[in-house]
């Protein structure tokens, strides 16, 4: 009997979702934060963060395998109902806030670079509406379109690298260590939230067709995303040099301006804006659906696509609160710093609780 629309996704779809959740962060405001913190060695930060998060990730995977439930159920199971609710509430608030800020920051990028006359509210609205519709169609659909778009995404990224190759000055690579290895390491830990957000994806554990797929896609996806982030952070430094890259706004979008495809297309940034918007819509749809998961678990509701509409509505209005980009950056910094520690500690806490319970039973 045909069971293809059972709401579950496969390994490839999940992998694509991780890429679109984490691996595309070089396209938004993230590089700015990283360059500020890691100077021209910022490209090492995703890799160091990955190393730093290696232990929690492995703990998480072993916990999931042991208990065979999603991340959120795991929290309830190990910490109990009350503490679990508080933890999930915290997670929800954190992610809700950062998604809101991210929406606004995307709209600001478009507003600053492309549509200077269009009100930011309209830009936010369009992005929210598109991602809401995609999220409304469900996890399956998000997985499918992620996988459909992924080859084009890689192809365009290769085009981007190939056509900006001439602008590269390998001398800008040095000093390799930037502000010093210790400083880079410290900042990597502080900014590990950029990657550790992926922990939330483990809430989708029960929605994978095969349990084995989760582990492989999760690991490959994260490593791939980090390498991708590192490659683009290197590319940006090699093209713009430090501190130039930290001083210009939205270095990725500036980079796309360098792409000249022969005598036909003199500036391809419009093309990249188009594709970037597609990727953005998928990116936010993933976040929205994760938020619904959190919210539904918090209130013990069934995951219902209808919950998306009020959530997206609130996100839209809240995202209009910050007055300008500078406020936004501050919010982002605060969120990232807090989330980094929270995610790390949460996983450790769960692991310790699990061990402690096992020990007590013996």
């Amino acid at each position, binding site marked *: 009997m045909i069971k*293809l629309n059972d709401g579950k996704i496969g390994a490839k779809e999940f992998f694509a979702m991780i890429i679109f959740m984490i691996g595309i962060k070089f396209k938004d405001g993230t590089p700015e934060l990283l360059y500020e913190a890691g100077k021209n060695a910022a490209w090492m930060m995703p890799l160091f963060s990955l190393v730093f998060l290696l232990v929690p990730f492995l703990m998480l995977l072993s916990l999931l395998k042991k208990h065979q439930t999603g991340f959120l159920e795991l929290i309830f199971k190990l910490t109990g109902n009350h503490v679990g609710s508080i933890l999930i509430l915290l997670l929800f608030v954190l992610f809700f806030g950062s998604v809101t800020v991210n929406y606004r920051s995307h709209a600001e990028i478009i507003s600053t670079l492309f549509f200077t006359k269009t009100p930011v509210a309209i830009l936010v609205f369009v992005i929210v509406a598109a991602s809401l519709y995609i999220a409304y169609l469900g996890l399956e659909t998000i997985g499918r379109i992620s996988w459909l778009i992924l080859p084009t995404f890689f192809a365009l990224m290769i085009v981007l690298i190939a056509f900006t190759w001439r602008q590269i000055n390998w001398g800008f690579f040095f000093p390799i260590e930037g502000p010093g290895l210790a400083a880079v390491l410290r900042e990597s830990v502080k900014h590990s939230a950029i990657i550790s957000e992926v922990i939330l994806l483990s809430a989708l554990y029960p929605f994978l067709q095969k349990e084995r797929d989760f582990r492989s896609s999760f690991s490959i996806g994260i490593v791939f995303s980090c390498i991708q982030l590192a490659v683009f952070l290197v590319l940006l430094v090699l093209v713009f040099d430090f501190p130039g890259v930290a001083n210009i706004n939205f270095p990725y979008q500036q980079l796309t301006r360098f792409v000249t495809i022969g005598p036909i297309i003199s500036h391809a940034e419009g093309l990249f804006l188009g594709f970037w918007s597609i990727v953005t819509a998928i990116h936010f749809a993933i976040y929205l659906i994760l938020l619904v998961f959190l919210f539904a678990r918090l209130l013990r509701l069934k995951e219902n696509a209808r919950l998306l509409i009020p959530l997206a509505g609130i996100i839209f209005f809240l995202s209009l609160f910050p007055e300008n980009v500078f406020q936004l950056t501050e919010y982002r910094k605060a969120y990232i710093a807090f989330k980094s520690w929270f995610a790390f500690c949460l996983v450790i806490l769960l692991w310790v609780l699990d061990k402690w319970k096992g020990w007590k039973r013996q």
Partner: protein
Amino acid sequence: MNTTLTGHLLYNVDKLKNIFHYPQSKALYIRSVYLSFLKREAVVFFVEGAAEIKTIESRILTPFLSEPVQTMDDDDIIDFLIEEILTSSICKKITTFDAAVNELINGNTVIFIEDERAAISVVTDAFKDRQITEPSTEFVIKGPKESFNESMSTNCSLIRKRIKDPNLISELLTVGDREPQQVTVMYIKDVADDGLVKQVKQRVNQIEIDVVIDLTILEHLIEKRPYSLIPSTLTTERPDRTVSFLREGHVVLLMEGSPLALIVPITFWSLIHTAEDQYLRWASGNFTRVIRLIALVITLLVPSVYLAVTTFHPEMFPTDLMLAIAASRERIPIPAFWELLFMEITLEILREAGIRIPTVIGPTIGIVGTIILGQAAVEANIVSPILVIVVSITGLASFAIPDIGFNIAVRITRFIFLISAAAMGFLGLSLAFIVFLAYAASYSSFGVPFFAPLAPSLPSSNDLYTRPPVQKQSLRPFHLFPKDKQRMKNRKERNK
């Protein structure tokens, strides 16, 4: 009306006459015969135009009126007549008026016998059919040139000619309350998934309507989402294409009076592939397929990309080209969006008119199209010459999309994209695109997702954007859950 026949011949005859409004209607033909070897009266009925008189004369009347070699040894007269007198290959015994009427309107001859509670039906139908001709919409240069005609039995035979397999099942279902019509459901028993076959039959059986006029109407009736832009079924007039779908594990529906086969379930790929992709060699087949995909992208996106670039992202073009475009638009008083919309709609009118126009004055429309739209509109400064190029390329490309339903869906979507590009340039266009893609990805036909087996990713022969050589297409697509998953065993297994 579903009453059984009585033993009174006169009563039976009168009742049947009443049903057919005889003598007011001249449809029913009645011929009485005296069967001397039985010493009984018999009445032969058939319907004008539906039955063939010559067959009736040679298969029924001649044996009835000549002295039989055999003598009556059977208790049942009806069985005796069927087994030993009538020379027709298909005869059956019927016992109700309902059955008698059904047989008559399907062109068969019904014989009532004196003092018998049953009747005989003999197959004599002779509805006029069109010859088997070349396909008119799915033409190929290399490959079979037969197409279906309006007779269900001919269509079945065209399929059976290609699949010589006892596992090819054809089941008969009936739809329509007022005028019951037969629908043939065909599938290969040891390939097609049982659940799928059951689901298709269920959908057909659930139809509540008085008359199903044609297979194309049946197509709408078995669809789950009637308002959707994307079709969830496919019709083809090519028996070879139908057969290749059957062999993959699809289910095919046929109906009397329709020169098409209805195929379910379908995916995006079946809508853009053609039979010729497989008939041509690997390189040529893939080339035509890639060209068709490019045409699809051009149809969908070129007008809106043009609009987005000229109105929102002029920096994309080199200065010289941009200046050329600007210069050509200089004297045009209308905004680019309206200009484009006007031209696109005109093109659609041209297409529609081209289909409806009588063939005799067909060439005129070409002249009207090219001269009035291409030349005069430009000279009158209503549209710019570059726009004419954009619209003609789009129009030309749209003809390359093979399936009519999908073709029109793409053309409609093009207008949606046009509006979004007019509103917000590349941002609007790409958001509209991803929303549309998401919709398509969530869409499913009989439980099979639209982009399967690419997304969701499932094992298949990768007969998608391109196709591998025939010998490498060893798997049946898994999204259909075929019972027999492999088309060909690999060499090692074969040698065992």
